[in-house]
């Protein structure tokens, strides 16, 4: 019998990957039946530490394979290949209401995956560590170019895939928190779509003039994409989350300049006063601010502000006039926007107008408002800084339940990529061939 101590082997493949790539975690050379805890630790850009952990028991071959074996307990349970990432939560003692968002996409998210003996739930730093590896998760694939855009008074960043192009283009809009958030556009460019992240609530021009941008701003952004030598002007999409959806639908239906190949609206609504600018839309929300509710933890629920869905056509986008394919992503437990009710109304409008063949709705039970790229930690509520002047900080309830929301993110992202590829790359029905030269 060998008197040598256990030589535990931990491997994570791949050790460097894109944020939406799956990895395989393998622990080997254990004694059969050995109890261990796999732990993930990440320090995010603002200095907060996040962790996840799961309890496993080695099988008869002395192996634990996270893709195949069930976690018995921890921040997730059952067989969850990526559970150590999406169940990351702030370490005990952290501030309440944190949300993880990568603002610098040129560096990776670094996660330390460790193995501890026994089934532990806390005090990891004091335990004897058996093995540990580091994993890098990237939003930008090698070769993707990050191009800050200031033409036309825009505050934006364009991400170009590698290669000569021409690439399809995409305008990427986030929601009511403002700022220039780049990570989703960087990831889309890593999948071959030239994507522009656009700050439209807190851009430089608004900071300088105190005035909100109007429709021209979005049309300028569209034109920058359309006229870019490496972007195919005839294949441009818009993707918006939350308030970004509001803008997307308005542009898709009413703009004379913006001609979309397709649109994706996540956790959004078509409800908005038609004909005005962003100020009018925000004002209409404020008018209904009295409908704000608080949950049992005093967290803000804003979903009622747009309810009931108006019947007055001047208060919502005329979806019957939409001419491009639309993908709506709905979290049924969205506590921030009435996404589900809006999607139902959109469907009804399009059914009546006869263009509902353009509509696809992905609806996820127990998913909340913040449906983001997959494998990122979930926040059921977080501190939200409004863009009002002066800004106020509130604790907003987004909704959703950890496991269901994480599954929704994974499924919605995959289907979003398929939808975008089909509409932006697809269409070989015309039978082009290289021989026509």
């Amino acid at each position, binding site marked *: 019998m*060998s008197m*040598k*101590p256990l*030589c535990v*082997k*931990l*491997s994570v*493949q*791949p*050790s*460097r*990957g*894109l944020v939406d*790539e799956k990895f395989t975690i393998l622990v080997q*050379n254990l004694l059969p039946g050995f109890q261990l805890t796999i732990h993930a630790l990440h320090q995010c850009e603002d200095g907060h530490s996040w962790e996840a952990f799961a309890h496993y028991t080695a099988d008869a071959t002395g192996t634990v394979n996270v893709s195949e074996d069930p976690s018995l307990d921890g921040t997730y349970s059952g067989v969850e290949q990526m559970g150590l990432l999406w169940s990351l939560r702030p370490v005990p003692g952290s501030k309440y209401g944190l949300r993880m968002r990568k603002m610098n996409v040129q560096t990776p998210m*670094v996660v*330390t995956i*460790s193995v501890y003996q026994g089934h532990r739930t806390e005090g990891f730093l004091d335990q004897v*560590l*058996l*093995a*540990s*590896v*580091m*994993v*890098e998760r*990237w939003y930008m*694939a*090698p*070769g993707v170019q990050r191009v800050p855009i200031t033409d036309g008074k825009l505050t934006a960043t364009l991400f170009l*895939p*590698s*290669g*000569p*192009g*021409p*690439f*399809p283009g995409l305008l990427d809009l986030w929601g009511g928190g403002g700022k220039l958030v780049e990570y989703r556009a960087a990831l889309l460019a*890593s999948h*071959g779509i030239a994507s522009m992240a656009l700050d439209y609530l807190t851009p430089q021009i608004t900071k300088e003039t105190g005035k909100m941008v109007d429709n021209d701003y979005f049309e300028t952004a569209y034109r920058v994409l359309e*006229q870019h*030598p490496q972007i*195919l*002007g*005839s*294949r441009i999409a818009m993707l918006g989350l939350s308030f970004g959806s509001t803008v997307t639908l308005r542009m898709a239906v009413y703009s004379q300049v913006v001609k979309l190949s397709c649109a994706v609206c996540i956790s959004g609504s078509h409800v908005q006063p038609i004909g005005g600018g962003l100020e009018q839309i925000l004002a209409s929300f404020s008018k209904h601010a009295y409908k704000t509710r608080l949950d049992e933890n005093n967290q803000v629920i804003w979903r009622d502000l747009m309810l009931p869905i108006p019947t007055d056509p001047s208060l919502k986008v005329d979806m019957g006039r939409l001419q491009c394919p639309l993908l709506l992503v709905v979290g049924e437990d969205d506590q921030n926007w009435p996404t589900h009710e809006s999607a139902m109304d959109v469907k009804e409008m399009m059914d009546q107008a006869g263009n509902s063949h353009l509509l696809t709705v992905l609806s996820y039970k127990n998913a909340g408002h913040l449906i983001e790229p997959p494998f990122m930690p979930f926040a059921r509520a977080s501190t939200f800084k409004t863009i009002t002047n002066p800004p106020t900080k509130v604790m907003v309830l987004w909704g959703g339940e950890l496991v269901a929301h994480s599954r929704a993110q994974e499924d919605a992202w995959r289907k979003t990529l398929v939808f975008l590829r089909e509409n*932006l*790359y*697809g*269409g*070989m029905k*015309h*039978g*082009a*061939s*290289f*021989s*026509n*030269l």
Partner: protein
Amino acid sequence: MIALGGKMIPCYTVQRNLACIQRTVGGVHWTSSCRPAPLLTASPVCALIDDKISIRGHFLPPRCPVTVCAQMQSDDGDLWEAFAHFNTNLDGTVNLTRDPSVGGSYLGCEPMGLLWGLQPAPGAREGLRLRKKKVETPYVMLMSLLKGHVSPSERPSTELAAVTAERWYMAPGVRRIEIRQKGVVGTLFLPPGPGPFPAMLDLWGMGGGLVEYRSALFASRGYASFSLAYIGHKDLPGPQNRINVGDPYFKSAFQLLQDHPQVYPDRIGIIGLSFGVYLTLRLANHSDIKPSCLICINGPAGSTIKLRDADDRTEQMENDQKYWTYDDQGNVSFRAVSLPANLSPESKVKLEHLTCPLMYIVGEDDLSASSIENANLIEETLSATGKSQLFTRLSYPGAGHLIEPPYTPNSRVSLWSVKPQKLATLWGGHLAPHAAAQEDSWKKILEFMETNLRH
């Protein structure tokens, strides 16, 4: 081609009646309503050198000729490239894991052919060998999808799509530590984590210097690994063209590993390539050095030169020249130097005292060392002393001397020295069999290490 104002402009897609021009000409952008360029993907896009990569083209016309081409720049700035010709599938895709190359740097279905098939680009310097000096940075591989069955020099006019991939020797968290201790010159690579780790002592050949990349890769696979310099390094006693260290030096290196707090002192193996095989066997022969396993690649069981001995004298390598042979181009083969008959009898390592498993890897087309003969010698010696169960031989037809980590190109011949005159040396090895040998032997090396160092 279409004519526009008398000027012929190349275009690659014509759609019904609509002529469309995709490329900018002199900075002017020609608008068109054609489809976007096809997509080329690589997965994983950041990988370790010994990881496979899946390369695919999408959204192409069906049954069309395309070329996939790879380019990589060495640390010295030389460009290496490879290309392969395919015909797209009915669904408009090309998939290097599924589809055969019908021409180019390699033939047949070879998912990693664009990597091991890399050659110096036309116009490159002569006699190159691809070796990474800076292991802390990746190789950046630019892969392109070209229209038709063409050669890479026909970029950019035929380029449809491109993707960039990184190939790393070091996984995140691997630590690289320069060692200059007790006269020992080397680089230690430690895996991430608390340790302790099983370890390898890593020895290369007479080319000298400090070769780090195999150790970096072992550390990325969970083994502490120590690359040791013994000739041709400025921090070693001079002159640089001779071995000026002896047995005490190699023992110190082994003990350094044993004494390291993050290394298991009784789980250390030794790997040697070429002359490194002799050093491996010689070191393991000391009664107070107890490695857990030995891996020998294409090297001798004895030597024509003496290591620095008690009288502080060493014989020069030039005495070997009587065994050098030359081909028609004046390239030298060192093969005969290590024929057992030419090795000094007292230098032949007494393998009778071996106590640990030994794996010997033979490239049957080795033109630099008499690997087959030395493998036979070792096997016979061990058999005669009832230790054949310790011996494993891997023998690869068509493989040459430089059996290195997989998916890297082999050089059949490369520049050996420039003084007194330019001399290139023959390593041997034919393209596809050598690549297969590297892939298979690396897998078996890691399994052998797993069995002997972890269990």
